[in-house]
Structure formats: structure tokens, C-alpha cells
């Protein structure tokens, strides 16, 4: 069927125009900016100076380390938990599936700011979390005031917010798996745990990869939670790359330096995505 040649372009033009102006242009502009610094009220090209400054910036390394720790702990814990819950909800015998699915997904609907603030109140020294722990004879924990526990707080909050989201993705994938493989595993006498690790997980590999990459990209941009939960403290123990970009950009108005950090994040996303594809050996 012949159609007017310019027609598809007319349909896509508004999106492309907006995309060029508000996504492509800023991506390049930010890259250029990362090689510039403010001198005498104007941005001038200063080569790699922003990047070399990063090398000696303790707070940057701390932010990088914190982001890395949160990533390494939170993402696997959440993915595993989401897989277990999805697997449980996929059970043939279970009733109330819809209820559980919606309850687990509910945290993923709320705003990052709202839930961060809510958690900051729950995790106060005299807050309900410590009161509940007290019932079990556990001493009060300084959730937000101790460098170690502040990181744990962020991890707990993120896990609460995102597990259901990933669970729903896994649940959909589980429902599209064929029953034959499970029947074969049954014949071989595999138990539930063996089936989970040797049948379910391998078959879900592409979806697990998809969810892991999304979570990785999200964690590398972590901002709303530390901003509202801990303000990056105590002693920068929850400073993240996202928060540090914001501080340099909009507290100190050092756009060049903030852009350089943003490009470190871009680079990290690229590298980690590459390795996740490589390690899982997914050719598609």
C-alpha cells in the first residue's frame, strides 16, 4: 500500500521535536558542560579539570562507595524476594491471588517523597520501628543517626518500595512458562526448591536481567530517598551520586562539576549494563 511519504514523519514529528530539544540536546550539552568551569562569570573550556578534581574529592568517592554498597546489597535481595513472592503467588493452590498481588504492588504506586518521609518518621529513635523491636527484646537502633544503620534504612525503604513492582514483572513471566518443564522435573523427582533454582530461575533469565538492569539504573540515580530520609547524613554515609549531583548543581551552582559527576553515572550505567548482559550470556 502506497501512502504519502511524508505522512509517517508528520505523525512522529511532535515526539521527535520534543525529544531532540529536551532529551538529546541536554545529553550533549551536559557532556560539553562537564569539560567547562565558571571563570569570571562565564563558562570556559577547562579540559579534564572537573574529572581530575573528582579523583581527589573524598565526598565523591564516598558517594560512589555508598551507591555501590546499596546497589550490591539491595538489588539482589530485592530480586530474590520478588522471585520468591512471584513464585508463591503463581502456585495453583493459592486463593486471594488478586488481593496479595495488589497489596504487594501498592508500595510501588506511592511517591518516592511521600514514602521516604513516612519512613523517616517510622525510623526515628522513638519511632514505631524501635517500639516494635522492643517487644521482641531488641534494643533500640539509631536507624537514621548511625552511619551503618542509615544505609540499612535506605536499603529497607527501597526494598519496601520496589519489591512488589519486580514481583509483578516476574509473575507475568511465570504465567507464560510452559507446564511441561515442571512436569518433567516432577518425574525426575525434583523438590520445590530444586525446581525453583533449576527450572524457574533459568527460564526467567531474560526477565530477571531486564529487572536487574532497570533496578541498577534506578539505584545509580538514587536521590529522593536520601534527600528526604537522611539528607545524605550522618557524615555523608548516605550521600549518593544523585544527591551529590544535585548539591553541586543547585546548592553550589557548579554546573560543570555536577555534569562531570552525572557523566560518571552515565558511564557506570553503560558498564554495568554491559557486564550484566555478558555474565548472564543473553544474546538477544
Amino acid at each position, binding site marked *: *500500500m502506497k501512502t504519502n511519504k511524508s505522512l*509517517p514523519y508528520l*505523525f*512522529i514529528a*511532535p*515526539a*521527535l521535536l*520534543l*525529544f531532540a*530539544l*529536551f*532529551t*538529546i*540536546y*541536554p*545529553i550533549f*550539552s*551536559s557532556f560539553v*558542560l562537564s569539560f567547562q568551569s565558571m571563570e569570571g562569570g562565564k563558562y570556559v573550556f577547562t579540559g579534564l579539570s572537573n574529572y581530575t578534581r573528582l579523583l581527589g574529592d573524598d565526598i565523591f568517592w564516598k558517594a560512589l562507595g555508598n551507591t555501590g554498597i546499596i546497589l550490591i546489597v539491595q538489588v539482589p535481595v530485592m530480586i530474590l524476594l520478588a522471585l520468591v513472592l512471584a513464585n*508463591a503467588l503463581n*502456585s495453583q*493452590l493459592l486463593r486471594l491471588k488478586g488481593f*496479595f*498481588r495488589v*497489596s*504487594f504492588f*501498592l*508500595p510501588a*504506586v*506511592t*511517591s*518516592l*517523597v*511521600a*514514602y521516604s*518521609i*513516612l519512613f*523517616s*518518621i517510622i525510623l*526515628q529513635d522513638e*519511632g*514505631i520501628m524501635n*517500639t516494635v523491636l522492643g517487644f521482641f527484646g531488641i534494643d533500640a537502633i539509631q536507624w537514621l543517626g548511625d552511619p551503618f544503620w542509615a544505609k540499612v534504612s535506605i536499603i529497607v525503604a527501597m526494598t*519496601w518500595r520496589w519489591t*512488589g513492582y519486580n514481583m*509483578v514483572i516476574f509473575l*507475568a513471566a511465570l504465567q507464560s512458562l510452559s507446564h511441561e518443564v515442571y512436569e518433567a522435573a516432577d518425574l525426575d523427582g525434583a523438590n520445590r526448591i530444586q525446581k525453583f533454582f533449576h527450572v524457574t530461575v533459568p527460564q526467567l533469565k531474560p*526477565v530477571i536481567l531486564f529487572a536487574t538492569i532497570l533496578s541498577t*539504573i534506578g539505584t545509580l540515580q538514587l*536521590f*529522593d530517598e536520601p534527600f528526604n530520609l537522611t539528607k545524605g547524613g550522618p557524615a555523608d554515609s548516605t550521600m549518593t551520586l*544523585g544527591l551529590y549531583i*544535585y548539591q553541586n*548543581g543547585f546548592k553550589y551552582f557548579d554546573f560543570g562539576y*555536577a555534569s562531570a559527576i*552525572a557523566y560518571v*553515572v*552515565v558511564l557506570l*550505567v*553503560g558498564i554495568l549494563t554491559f557486564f550484566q548482559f555478558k555474565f548472564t550470556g543473553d544474546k538477544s
Partner: protein
Amino acid sequence: MRKIGLYSMLGLFTIISIFPFYWMIIGATNESGKMFTNPPTLKPGDQFMTNLQNLNASIDLGRVFFNSVFVSVVYVIVALMVCSTAAYALSKFEFKGRNAIFTTLLLSMMIPYQATLIPLFQLMSNFNLLDTYFALIVPQLCFPFAIFLLRQNFLAFPTELIEAARLDGAGEMRIFLTIVLPSMKPAMAAAAIFLFMTQWNNFMWPLVATTSNEMATLPVALSSLIGLSIIDYGQVMMGVTIATIPIIVFFLALQRHFISGMLGSAVK
């Protein structure tokens, strides 16, 4: 036995998922100190109106709530137009550069938002558009994930129907609006919910793009409350509740479309 184990595990996780929402409502109806008592206060109190009034005195609630609703609704309508036409072109027309455009859109989803934040801010600042609805709405109208989600669904629409309509002499815009779109309601609903939630919950961009209290959105105004030296937790909980309840109601009403739409794009 195994069933009991399964239900207790799921029950435990349900409590963990739901309890913070319950606690939020307890907080919104009690005075500040009630959130830190031992044993904990687990019953709704009678401070609902007081907290609401205090919150309104702190952040001009009506205005901020209007901003969030207005920005989200206008955003969803315009973004749906932009994204659905683009998705239609990408799924139903052959044209030069189609694959390159689609790949670029997909790849851009991997670029962290923060890498575009500063130039966007400068752009808006140069055109004197900071602190306007324009700045809050326009920059993210082309939302690659929404285009992707819609395209997946448009691909399944039978091309023969489009061609038959063309033979009958229907214009392309008419075909799109009266033949294709009506049968794409579930996909459009899924995209709309997704776009609405993204915008309603958006924080970082509104935080930098607005400078006055009059233009703040709900998340920005909420965040400003906990920067105060003495925090009134009652009104903060009220604010969190007001930011959360509408989106939960919205989600519960439309969750079937939302979850199936999300799933469709994730698994395909």
C-alpha cells in the same frame, strides 16, 4: 502444612506492605507526639481537622494540590497525543530512519535523568520559563517508555483494517482517531496511568524547576516541611496522606489495566 506456611509468609508480607499506609492515617489523625508513644498509638485520633488546618497554613494546600492535579492531568493528555501518534508511526508505517529513531528512543531510557537536569534547567532559565506550568509539563512529554508500551500494543492491531479504510478513502488522521485508537483503549489506559503516576510522584525536576511556593507541586511542598527545625509530624503525616490517597484510589480503580499493560510490555 505447606499451605499454612505459604499463607503465613504471604500474610506477613501483606502486613509489611500495608502497615505503613495504616500508620500514615494514624499519624494524620493524631497529634505529633502520639507517633512516638510506647505502647504505640494504633487507633485513629481526632486531630484530623487540626492537622489539615496546620498543613494548610504551612504550604497553601489548595494551591499546591491544584498544581499537582493540573500539571498531571494536562501532562497525561498532551503526552498521550504525542506518544500515541509516534508509536503509531513506529508500528504501522515503513519509513526511512524508523529503526534508528526507535533504537535511539530505547537507548535514551538508559541515560540517567540527572545527565539532562542541568541543561534543562539552563534552557528554562534562558527562556524565563522557570517556575511556570510550561516548565513542569513540557520537557517530559515525549516519554520513551510510553511510546514503547503503546507501540507493542499497536503492533498487534490488524494492518488490513487500516488498508481497507484507506481504500474507502478515509484520511490518515481519521483512520488513526476513529479506527485504531478506539480499539486501543486498554493500552491507552495503561499508558495514561503510567504517565499520571510518573508526573504526580515526580520530585527532582519540580524541585529545581520551581522557585516559588505558589508553583510547588505536592512532593516539593511536602519535602519542604521536613526541612523545618521543629517538625509537626501530625501535619507532615497529613501531607503524606493527601499525596498518597489519590494515587492509591486511582490505582485501585484502574489496577487491572495498569498491571496488564505493564506486563504486556515487560514480557513481550
